[in-house]
Protein backbone atom coordinates (compact mmCIF):
# COMPACT_ATOMS: atom_id res chain seq x y z
CA UNK A 1 0.00 0.00 0.00
CA UNK A 2 1.13 3.55 -0.59
CA UNK A 3 1.71 5.53 2.56
CA UNK A 4 -0.75 7.88 4.22
CA UNK A 5 0.46 11.28 5.41
CA UNK A 6 0.95 9.97 8.95
CA UNK A 7 2.75 6.88 7.66
CA UNK A 8 5.07 9.09 5.62
CA UNK A 9 5.74 11.14 8.74
CA UNK A 10 6.50 7.98 10.72
CA UNK A 11 8.84 6.80 7.95
CA UNK A 12 10.78 10.07 8.07
CA UNK A 13 10.89 10.01 11.88
CA UNK A 14 12.45 6.52 11.79
CA UNK A 15 15.50 7.92 9.94
CA UNK A 16 16.23 10.74 12.38
CA UNK A 17 19.09 9.74 14.69
CA UNK A 18 18.57 10.05 18.45
CA UNK A 19 19.92 13.33 19.79
CA UNK A 20 19.48 15.17 16.49
CA UNK A 21 18.58 18.83 16.12
CA UNK A 22 15.78 19.04 13.60
CA UNK A 23 13.75 21.71 11.81
CA UNK A 24 10.38 20.63 10.44
CA UNK A 25 9.00 22.82 7.68
CA UNK A 26 5.46 24.11 7.52
CA UNK A 27 2.75 21.70 6.27
CA UNK A 28 3.34 18.00 5.80
CA UNK A 29 6.76 17.92 7.59
CA UNK A 30 5.13 19.22 10.79
CA UNK A 31 3.50 15.79 11.17
CA UNK A 32 6.92 14.22 11.73
CA UNK A 33 6.88 15.75 15.22
CA UNK A 34 4.06 13.36 16.19
CA UNK A 35 6.24 10.34 15.46
CA UNK A 36 9.48 11.11 17.26
CA UNK A 37 9.94 8.45 19.92
CA UNK A 38 9.88 9.58 23.55
CA UNK A 39 13.35 9.70 25.02
CA UNK A 40 14.99 10.03 21.60
CA UNK A 41 16.55 13.32 22.70
CA UNK A 42 15.60 14.92 19.42
CA UNK A 43 15.40 18.71 19.76
CA UNK A 44 13.18 20.77 17.48
CA UNK A 45 14.31 24.13 16.11
CA UNK A 46 11.85 26.69 14.87
CA UNK A 47 13.46 29.42 12.80
CA UNK A 48 11.42 32.21 14.33
CA UNK A 49 13.62 31.82 17.37
CA UNK A 50 13.75 28.78 19.58
CA UNK A 51 15.23 25.38 20.27
CA UNK A 52 13.32 22.86 22.34
CA UNK A 53 9.93 23.43 20.79
CA UNK A 54 7.18 21.23 22.21
CA UNK A 55 3.81 20.12 20.79
CA UNK A 56 1.09 22.52 19.66
CA UNK A 57 -0.40 24.47 22.55
CA UNK A 58 -3.91 23.59 23.66
CA UNK A 59 -6.32 25.53 25.82
CA UNK A 60 -4.61 27.58 28.49
CA UNK A 61 -1.20 26.84 27.03
CA UNK A 62 -1.88 29.13 24.07
CA UNK A 63 0.35 32.21 24.20
CA UNK A 64 0.43 34.49 21.14
CA UNK A 65 4.09 35.18 21.90
CA UNK A 66 5.04 31.50 21.63
CA UNK A 67 4.43 30.35 18.07
CA UNK A 68 6.18 28.24 15.48
CA UNK A 69 7.25 29.28 11.98
CA UNK A 70 3.75 28.48 10.73
CA UNK A 71 2.41 30.95 13.32
CA UNK A 72 0.72 28.14 15.24
CA UNK A 73 0.85 28.45 19.07
CA UNK A 74 3.22 25.86 20.48
CA UNK A 75 4.83 24.98 23.82
CA UNK A 76 8.39 24.87 25.07
CA UNK A 77 10.10 21.92 26.69
CA UNK A 78 12.54 21.90 29.62
CA UNK A 79 15.94 22.88 28.22
CA UNK A 80 14.46 25.21 25.60
CA UNK A 81 16.27 28.38 24.53
CA UNK A 82 15.03 31.55 22.83
CA UNK A 83 17.13 33.69 20.49
CA UNK A 84 16.68 36.43 17.90
CA UNK A 85 16.32 36.05 14.14
CA UNK A 86 19.95 36.63 13.19
CA UNK A 87 21.09 34.07 15.76
CA UNK A 88 18.40 31.63 14.67
CA UNK A 89 19.36 31.77 11.01
CA UNK A 90 23.06 31.71 11.88
CA UNK A 91 22.29 28.41 13.59
CA UNK A 92 20.55 27.16 10.45
CA UNK A 93 22.94 28.57 7.84
CA UNK A 94 25.99 27.54 9.85
CA UNK A 95 25.22 23.85 9.46
CA UNK A 96 24.32 23.20 13.08
CA UNK A 97 20.89 21.69 12.40
CA UNK A 98 21.26 18.01 11.58
CA UNK A 99 18.12 17.52 9.56
CA UNK A 100 15.64 19.85 7.94
CA UNK A 101 12.48 18.33 6.48
CA UNK A 102 10.71 20.46 3.89
CA UNK A 103 7.72 20.24 1.61
CA UNK A 104 8.21 20.78 -2.11
CA UNK A 105 6.52 21.56 -5.40
CA UNK A 106 9.42 20.01 -7.32
CA UNK A 107 12.71 18.30 -6.57
CA UNK A 108 15.23 17.49 -9.28
CA UNK A 109 17.25 14.29 -9.44
CA UNK A 110 20.29 16.49 -8.70
CA UNK A 111 18.73 17.75 -5.46
CA UNK A 112 17.55 21.14 -6.69
CA UNK A 113 14.48 22.31 -4.78
CA UNK A 114 11.47 24.41 -5.79
CA UNK A 115 9.10 24.97 -2.89
CA UNK A 116 8.36 28.68 -2.55
CA UNK A 117 6.64 29.81 -5.73
CA UNK A 118 4.19 28.17 -8.08
CA UNK A 119 5.38 30.58 -10.74
CA UNK A 120 1.80 31.68 -11.42
CA UNK A 121 2.04 35.10 -13.09
CA UNK A 122 -0.41 36.84 -10.79
CA UNK A 123 0.73 35.19 -7.55
CA UNK A 124 1.85 37.27 -4.59
CA UNK A 125 5.36 36.07 -3.83
CA UNK A 126 6.46 34.98 -0.37
CA UNK A 127 9.61 33.09 0.52
CA UNK A 128 9.95 33.23 4.32
CA UNK A 129 12.80 31.09 5.57
CA UNK A 130 12.56 28.51 2.77
CA UNK A 131 15.83 29.42 1.04
CA UNK A 132 17.76 29.58 4.30
CA UNK A 133 16.40 26.23 5.46
CA UNK A 134 17.14 24.59 2.11
CA UNK A 135 20.86 25.34 2.16
CA UNK A 136 21.58 25.41 5.88
CA UNK A 137 21.02 22.01 7.44
CA UNK A 138 23.52 19.14 7.27
CA UNK A 139 20.81 17.08 5.57
CA UNK A 140 17.80 18.55 3.82
CA UNK A 141 15.07 16.02 3.20
CA UNK A 142 11.88 16.59 1.27
CA UNK A 143 8.56 15.04 2.24
CA UNK A 144 5.90 15.16 -0.45
CA UNK A 145 3.53 13.12 -2.53
CA UNK A 146 5.47 11.87 -5.53
CA UNK A 147 2.82 13.15 -7.93
CA UNK A 148 0.92 16.44 -7.91
CA UNK A 149 -2.87 16.33 -7.69
CA UNK A 150 -3.07 16.46 -11.48
CA UNK A 151 -0.75 13.45 -11.74
CA UNK A 152 2.38 15.32 -12.84
CA UNK A 153 5.61 14.05 -11.27
CA UNK A 154 7.14 16.24 -8.57
CA UNK A 155 10.51 14.48 -8.82
CA UNK A 156 11.88 15.73 -12.13
CA UNK A 157 14.98 15.81 -14.29
CA UNK A 158 15.14 19.62 -14.02
CA UNK A 159 12.89 21.89 -11.97
CA UNK A 160 10.72 24.20 -14.05
CA UNK A 161 9.40 26.26 -11.12
CA UNK A 162 11.44 29.06 -9.50
CA UNK A 163 14.23 27.51 -7.44
CA UNK A 164 14.62 27.61 -3.68
CA UNK A 165 18.13 26.20 -3.73
CA UNK A 166 20.55 24.30 -5.93
CA UNK A 167 21.62 20.75 -5.11
CA UNK A 168 20.47 21.09 -1.52
CA UNK A 169 18.14 18.09 -1.12
CA UNK A 170 19.67 14.71 -0.32
CA UNK A 171 16.56 12.56 0.04
CA UNK A 172 12.87 12.51 -0.87
CA UNK A 173 10.30 10.74 1.29
CA UNK A 174 7.04 10.21 -0.56
CA UNK A 175 3.88 8.18 -0.46
CA UNK A 176 5.28 5.79 -3.09
CA UNK A 177 8.99 5.63 -2.46
CA UNK A 178 12.08 6.89 -0.66
CA UNK A 179 14.60 8.20 -3.17
CA UNK A 180 18.08 9.65 -2.69
CA UNK A 181 18.93 12.56 -4.98
CA UNK A 182 22.14 14.45 -5.59
CA UNK A 183 25.17 14.84 -7.83
CA UNK A 184 24.94 11.23 -9.01
CA UNK A 185 21.24 11.41 -9.78
CA UNK A 186 18.27 9.64 -8.25
CA UNK A 187 18.58 6.32 -6.49
CA UNK A 188 15.57 4.38 -5.32
CA UNK A 189 15.86 3.20 -1.70
CA UNK A 190 12.45 1.81 -0.88
CA UNK A 191 9.02 1.54 -2.44
CA UNK A 192 5.59 1.35 -0.87
CA UNK A 193 2.89 -0.75 -2.47
CA UNK A 194 4.47 -0.45 -5.87
CA UNK A 195 7.38 -1.77 -7.90
CA UNK A 196 10.51 0.07 -8.88
CA UNK A 197 9.56 -0.06 -12.54
CA UNK A 198 6.16 1.46 -11.77
CA UNK A 199 7.79 4.35 -9.94
CA UNK A 200 10.02 4.91 -12.95
CA UNK A 201 7.04 4.84 -15.27
CA UNK A 202 5.08 7.31 -13.14
CA UNK A 203 8.04 9.70 -13.04
CA UNK A 204 9.22 9.14 -16.57
CA UNK A 205 12.71 8.83 -15.12
CA UNK A 206 15.34 6.11 -15.01
CA UNK A 207 16.29 5.57 -11.35
CA UNK A 208 19.30 3.75 -10.02
CA UNK A 209 17.78 0.71 -8.34
CA UNK A 210 20.08 -1.27 -6.05
CA UNK A 211 19.90 -5.00 -6.58
CA UNK A 212 18.87 -5.70 -3.02
CA UNK A 213 15.84 -3.42 -3.06
CA UNK A 214 12.82 -5.31 -1.72
CA UNK A 215 10.00 -5.45 -4.22
CA UNK A 216 6.37 -5.68 -3.15
Amino acid at each position, binding site marked *: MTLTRQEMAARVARDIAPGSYVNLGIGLPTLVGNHLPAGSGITLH*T*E*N*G*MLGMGPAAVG*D*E*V*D*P*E*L*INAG*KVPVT*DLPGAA*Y*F*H*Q*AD*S*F*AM*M*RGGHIDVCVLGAFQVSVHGDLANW*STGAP*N*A*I*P*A*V*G*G*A*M*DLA*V*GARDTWVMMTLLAKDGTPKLVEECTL*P*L*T*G*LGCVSRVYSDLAVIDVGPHGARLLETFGTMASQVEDLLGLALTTPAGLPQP
Partner: protein
Amino acid sequence: MTRTRFVDTAVEALGVVPDGATVMIGGFGPAGQPVELVAALLAQGATDLVVVSNNAGNGEDALAHLIALGRVRRIMCSFPRQADSWHFDAAYRAGRIELELVPQGNLAERIRAAGAGLGGFFTPTGYGTPLAEGKETRVIGGVPMVLETPIHADVALIKAHRADRAGNLTYRRTARNFGPVMAAAARRTVVQVAEVVPAGGIDPETVVTPGIYVDSVVRLDSATTIAGTKGAVS
Protein backbone atom coordinates in the same frame (compact mmCIF):
# COMPACT_ATOMS: atom_id res chain seq x y z
CA MET B 1 20.22 58.71 33.62
CA THR B 2 21.02 57.68 30.08
CA ARG B 3 19.60 59.22 26.95
CA THR B 4 16.65 56.86 26.64
CA ARG B 5 13.39 58.84 27.01
CA PHE B 6 10.43 57.32 28.84
CA VAL B 7 7.12 58.77 27.71
CA ASP B 8 3.43 58.16 28.31
CA THR B 9 1.95 57.60 24.87
CA ALA B 10 2.83 55.78 21.68
CA VAL B 11 2.51 59.06 19.77
CA GLU B 12 5.10 60.78 21.95
CA ALA B 13 7.41 57.79 21.74
CA LEU B 14 7.18 57.74 17.96
CA GLY B 15 7.82 61.47 17.52
CA VAL B 16 8.15 62.82 14.00
CA VAL B 17 8.81 60.40 11.19
CA PRO B 18 9.58 62.36 8.03
CA ASP B 19 8.10 61.53 4.64
CA GLY B 20 10.36 59.16 2.77
CA ALA B 21 11.76 57.59 5.93
CA THR B 22 12.81 53.95 6.14
CA VAL B 23 10.93 52.32 9.02
CA MET B 24 11.66 48.89 10.46
CA ILE B 25 8.76 47.14 12.15
CA GLY B 26 9.46 44.18 14.44
CA GLY B 27 7.39 41.07 14.77
CA PHE B 28 6.86 37.67 13.21
CA GLY B 29 3.18 36.97 12.88
CA PRO B 30 1.42 38.27 15.98
CA ALA B 31 4.49 37.74 18.18
CA GLY B 32 6.39 40.96 18.78
CA GLN B 33 4.22 43.21 16.63
CA PRO B 34 4.45 46.77 17.94
CA VAL B 35 0.76 47.24 17.21
CA GLU B 36 0.26 50.56 18.99
CA LEU B 37 3.45 52.12 17.59
CA VAL B 38 2.42 51.28 14.04
CA ALA B 39 -1.00 52.74 14.81
CA ALA B 40 0.79 55.91 15.98
CA LEU B 41 2.68 55.97 12.68
CA LEU B 42 -0.63 55.68 10.86
CA ALA B 43 -1.96 58.64 12.88
CA GLN B 44 1.25 60.67 12.52
CA GLY B 45 0.86 61.01 8.77
CA ALA B 46 4.23 60.22 7.21
CA THR B 47 4.05 58.99 3.63
CA ASP B 48 6.36 57.73 0.88
CA LEU B 49 7.71 55.29 3.45
CA VAL B 50 10.05 52.36 2.96
CA VAL B 51 9.03 49.61 5.37
CA VAL B 52 11.27 46.74 6.47
CA SER B 53 9.26 44.02 8.15
CA ASN B 54 8.92 40.25 7.96
CA ASN B 55 5.27 40.51 6.88
CA ALA B 56 3.23 43.05 4.96
CA GLY B 57 0.22 43.65 7.19
CA ASN B 58 -2.59 41.43 8.38
CA GLY B 59 -6.29 42.06 7.97
CA GLU B 60 -7.09 45.63 8.99
CA ASP B 61 -4.02 46.27 11.14
CA ALA B 62 -2.15 49.57 10.99
CA LEU B 63 0.53 48.39 8.55
CA ALA B 64 -2.17 47.07 6.22
CA HIS B 65 -3.87 50.48 6.42
CA LEU B 66 -0.62 52.34 5.73
CA ILE B 67 -0.30 50.23 2.60
CA ALA B 68 -3.96 50.64 1.64
CA LEU B 69 -3.60 54.41 1.96
CA GLY B 70 -0.66 54.37 -0.43
CA ARG B 71 1.76 55.64 2.19
CA VAL B 72 4.25 52.81 1.74
CA ARG B 73 6.29 53.26 -1.42
CA ARG B 74 8.39 50.16 -0.96
CA ILE B 75 8.50 47.18 1.36
CA MET B 76 11.34 44.78 2.10
CA CYS B 77 10.03 41.58 3.57
CA SER B 78 10.23 37.81 3.45
CA PHE B 79 6.59 36.80 3.62
CA PRO B 80 4.07 39.35 2.33
CA ARG B 81 1.47 36.82 1.18
CA GLN B 82 -0.78 35.60 3.94
CA ALA B 83 -4.41 34.57 4.15
CA ASP B 84 -5.34 38.06 5.36
CA SER B 85 -2.86 40.27 3.48
CA TRP B 86 -5.56 41.61 1.12
CA HIS B 87 -4.47 45.25 1.36
CA PHE B 88 -0.92 44.39 0.39
CA ASP B 89 -2.11 41.99 -2.30
CA ALA B 90 -4.32 44.68 -3.87
CA ALA B 91 -1.60 47.34 -3.77
CA TYR B 92 0.97 44.94 -5.23
CA ARG B 93 -1.30 43.77 -8.05
CA ALA B 94 -2.12 47.40 -8.86
CA GLY B 95 1.59 48.27 -8.98
CA ARG B 96 1.15 50.77 -6.14
CA ILE B 97 3.89 49.27 -3.97
CA GLU B 98 7.40 48.06 -4.71
CA LEU B 99 8.35 44.74 -3.14
CA GLU B 100 11.86 43.56 -2.40
CA LEU B 101 11.42 39.95 -1.39
CA VAL B 102 14.26 38.86 0.91
CA PRO B 103 14.81 35.40 2.37
CA GLN B 104 14.11 35.61 6.08
CA GLY B 105 17.63 34.76 7.21
CA ASN B 106 19.14 37.22 4.75
CA LEU B 107 16.71 39.86 6.02
CA ALA B 108 17.84 39.26 9.59
CA GLU B 109 21.53 39.14 8.68
CA ARG B 110 21.37 42.25 6.48
CA ILE B 111 19.71 44.14 9.33
CA ARG B 112 22.36 42.85 11.71
CA ALA B 113 25.13 43.92 9.30
CA ALA B 114 23.78 47.48 9.33
CA GLY B 115 23.81 47.61 13.11
CA ALA B 116 27.28 46.10 13.20
CA GLY B 117 28.77 48.62 10.74
CA LEU B 118 29.61 46.01 8.11
CA GLY B 119 29.49 46.73 4.40
CA GLY B 120 28.02 43.41 3.32
CA PHE B 121 28.56 39.67 3.53
CA PHE B 122 28.71 36.56 1.38
CA THR B 123 25.96 34.02 2.05
CA PRO B 124 24.97 30.76 0.38
CA THR B 125 21.27 31.53 0.85
CA GLY B 126 19.47 32.32 -2.38
CA TYR B 127 22.33 31.40 -4.72
CA GLY B 128 21.01 30.23 -8.07
CA THR B 129 17.47 31.45 -7.36
CA PRO B 130 15.47 34.36 -8.79
CA LEU B 131 16.08 36.32 -5.56
CA ALA B 132 19.83 36.47 -6.26
CA GLU B 133 19.49 37.60 -9.86
CA GLY B 134 21.88 40.42 -10.70
CA LYS B 135 23.77 40.07 -7.44
CA GLU B 136 27.52 39.57 -7.20
CA THR B 137 28.49 35.95 -6.55
CA ARG B 138 31.63 34.01 -5.88
CA VAL B 139 32.61 30.51 -4.84
CA ILE B 140 34.11 30.44 -1.34
CA GLY B 141 35.46 27.20 0.09
CA GLY B 142 33.70 25.34 -2.71
CA VAL B 143 30.31 26.89 -1.90
CA PRO B 144 28.71 29.39 -4.27
CA MET B 145 27.74 32.53 -2.38
CA VAL B 146 25.89 35.80 -2.96
CA LEU B 147 26.99 39.22 -1.73
CA GLU B 148 24.26 40.80 0.37
CA THR B 149 24.23 44.40 1.61
CA PRO B 150 23.23 45.96 4.94
CA ILE B 151 19.75 47.36 5.52
CA HIS B 152 19.75 50.57 7.56
CA ALA B 153 16.69 52.42 8.81
CA ASP B 154 15.75 55.85 10.08
CA VAL B 155 13.39 54.50 12.70
CA ALA B 156 12.76 51.06 14.22
CA LEU B 157 9.47 50.23 15.95
CA ILE B 158 9.92 47.37 18.39
CA LYS B 159 7.87 45.54 20.96
CA ALA B 160 9.79 44.22 23.96
CA HIS B 161 8.56 42.93 27.30
CA ARG B 162 10.47 44.80 30.00
CA ALA B 163 12.66 47.91 30.02
CA ASP B 164 14.80 49.21 32.84
CA ARG B 165 15.47 52.94 33.23
CA ALA B 166 18.83 52.54 31.51
CA GLY B 167 16.88 51.47 28.41
CA ASN B 168 17.90 47.82 28.58
CA LEU B 169 15.31 45.43 27.16
CA THR B 170 14.19 41.85 27.56
CA TYR B 171 11.64 40.11 25.34
CA ARG B 172 9.16 37.27 25.78
CA ARG B 173 9.52 33.90 24.04
CA THR B 174 9.34 34.01 20.24
CA ALA B 175 8.32 37.67 20.34
CA ARG B 176 12.05 38.45 20.48
CA ASN B 177 12.45 37.71 16.75
CA PHE B 178 13.57 40.86 14.85
CA GLY B 179 13.64 43.27 17.82
CA PRO B 180 17.32 43.02 18.78
CA VAL B 181 18.73 43.37 15.27
CA MET B 182 16.34 46.15 14.24
CA ALA B 183 17.04 48.14 17.40
CA ALA B 184 20.71 48.28 16.41
CA ALA B 185 20.16 49.06 12.72
CA ALA B 186 18.04 52.21 13.04
CA ARG B 187 19.16 55.74 13.77
CA ARG B 188 16.25 55.99 16.20
CA THR B 189 14.64 53.08 18.01
CA VAL B 190 11.18 53.34 19.56
CA VAL B 191 10.02 50.59 21.89
CA GLN B 192 6.74 49.60 23.48
CA VAL B 193 6.94 47.43 26.58
CA ALA B 194 4.62 45.89 29.10
CA GLU B 195 6.73 46.80 32.10
CA VAL B 196 9.28 49.41 33.19
CA VAL B 197 11.62 48.72 36.14
CA PRO B 198 14.37 50.80 37.76
CA ALA B 199 17.94 50.71 36.42
CA GLY B 200 19.36 47.48 37.78
CA GLY B 201 15.92 45.86 37.73
CA ILE B 202 17.11 43.64 34.89
CA ASP B 203 19.99 41.28 35.71
CA PRO B 204 22.89 42.54 33.54
CA GLU B 205 23.55 38.93 32.44
CA THR B 206 20.08 38.68 30.89
CA VAL B 207 19.82 41.97 28.98
CA VAL B 208 18.99 41.18 25.35
CA THR B 209 19.01 44.71 23.86
CA PRO B 210 21.32 47.11 25.73
CA GLY B 211 20.00 50.63 26.34
CA ILE B 212 22.50 52.14 23.92
CA TYR B 213 20.16 51.01 21.13
CA VAL B 214 16.98 52.40 22.67
CA ASP B 215 15.86 56.00 22.16
CA SER B 216 12.33 56.10 23.50
CA VAL B 217 10.16 53.74 25.50
CA VAL B 218 6.44 53.73 26.18
CA ARG B 219 4.74 51.35 28.58
CA LEU B 220 1.37 50.28 27.23
CA ASP B 221 -1.37 48.53 29.13
CA SER B 222 -2.36 46.74 25.97
CA ALA B 223 1.11 45.33 25.79
CA THR B 224 0.66 44.12 29.33
CA THR B 225 -2.55 42.51 28.24
CA ILE B 226 -0.93 40.84 25.28
CA ALA B 227 1.91 39.52 27.33
CA GLY B 228 -0.02 38.73 30.45
CA THR B 229 -3.27 37.22 29.34
CA LYS B 230 -3.15 34.50 26.82
CA GLY B 231 -5.06 34.59 23.58
CA ALA B 232 -5.70 38.32 23.76
CA VAL B 233 -4.32 38.99 20.31
CA SER B 234 -6.53 38.50 17.30
